[in-house]
């Protein structure tokens, strides 16, 4: 299979990589760029552990071809913390014990950030619907919803 060279932007930095035509963006992020935050839970769009944003839209990176990243802007969990430290969502997840094994956490953080950018004051129901494609086997979701709401409140008052 021939290889394709791709020029893209990841978390604001220009990145060039080479991939095969059938390679997923998730595999390219993990294996070519060393960004292992996004996880493969299922590889078929069901679990959301691979969530990233592509040109500002939340997507499953397992359902995007790496070649489609050409000229695109990608954001992953690795870009969430700023120079001043963790993102409010990341801190809230720690404070509320909204993670156990942590496999789902990067995807949920990226998804929750995308939600709060669109809707800074969501209801619990809106949080649950938005995150319906992010499966967690450990926490039971309640703490996740509470952590998202705590971060949202903090970000609104900032």
């Amino acid at each position, binding site marked *: 299979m021939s290889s394709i060279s791709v020029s893209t932007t990841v978390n604001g930095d220009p990145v060039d990589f080479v991939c095969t035509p059938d390679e997923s963006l998730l595999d390219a992020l993990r294996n070519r760029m060393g960004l292992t935050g996004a996880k493969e839970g299922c590889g078929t*769009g*069901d679990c959301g552990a691979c969530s990233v944003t592509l040109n500002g839209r939340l*997507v*499953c990176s397992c359902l995007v*071809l790496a070649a*489609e990243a050409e000229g695109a802007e990608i954001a992953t969990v690795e870009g969430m913390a700023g120079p001043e430290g963790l993102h409010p969502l990341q801190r809230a997840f720690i404070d509320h014990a909204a993670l156990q094994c942590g496999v789902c956490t990067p995807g949920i953080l990226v*998804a929750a950030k995308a*939600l709060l950018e669109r809707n800074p004051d969501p209801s619990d129901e809106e949080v649950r*619907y*938005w995150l319906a494609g992010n499966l967690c086997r450990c926490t039971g979701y309640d703490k996740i919803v509470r952590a998202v709401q705590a971060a949202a409140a903090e970000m609104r008052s900032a």
Partner: protein
Amino acid sequence: MRYEKPQTVADAARLLTAEKGITRVLGGGTDVLVQLKAGMVEPDLIVDIKALPGIRAIVAEAGGFRIGAAVSNAQLGEDAAVRAMWPGVVEAAGLIGSTQVQGRATMAGNLCNASPAGDAVPALVAAGAVARVAGPGAARDVPVEAIPAGPGKTTLKRGEFITSILLPARPAKSGDAYLRFIPRTEMDIAVASAAVSLTLNDHGVITAARVALGAVAPTVRLVDDAAAAIIGTKLHDDALAALAAACSAACAPIDDKRGTIEFRTEVAGVLAKRAARIAYTRAGGQA
């Protein structure tokens, strides 16, 4: 496998026509990538249509809206004007998958994947939507119900693909709605579904209607008898009963772990009644 991202419709058609092996058009990829991963298909060529001019645009046309084939359902749902005119279509597309899937999945992909349970398809059929098909020859317009040929099969010919779907203009006092039955509240495949689009006169009498059913036959069904059962009525109980009976009579479902033949046949009628009531209220009728 080769991956190509042509910049013109003519180039896309040329690539698809010239390839001797298996080809796949790539829209949002939410079916294509799952099928690749499962080894269900091993294409020789993938043609990504997302760089074609206008393919991601929603444009007002002739009183309706032309929806580019690569418009994601998330983008569609954010368009207040389309939502106001065709709420049932927008809601149906909005039911597909998670937030992540919504960011990528398209109505054209839902139509061309040709699953009998595709959620956008019954609503598009009820709406009288028309697909614009490009290919090696001149572009042609095809009613959406003529695209699926059976599970996973379409009537599109070699080298052909959809560039846009037209949601037509509609008279005042019109409404549409789509409902599906799934065992969960999110992220599941329809066991049965129904879409209704209708228009009323000033007295609340239905003057035109289209009724379509999903997941109860090899393809989505446009049920003329069901529409006939409510045209000329104010959607009273006897009209609703006739609508449900006509829908159940049009069902030829499969029996599987998701639902039995009897269950699907009954539920399709119930969903059609409920969808008709919602459409009627949206059209301004007093139900």
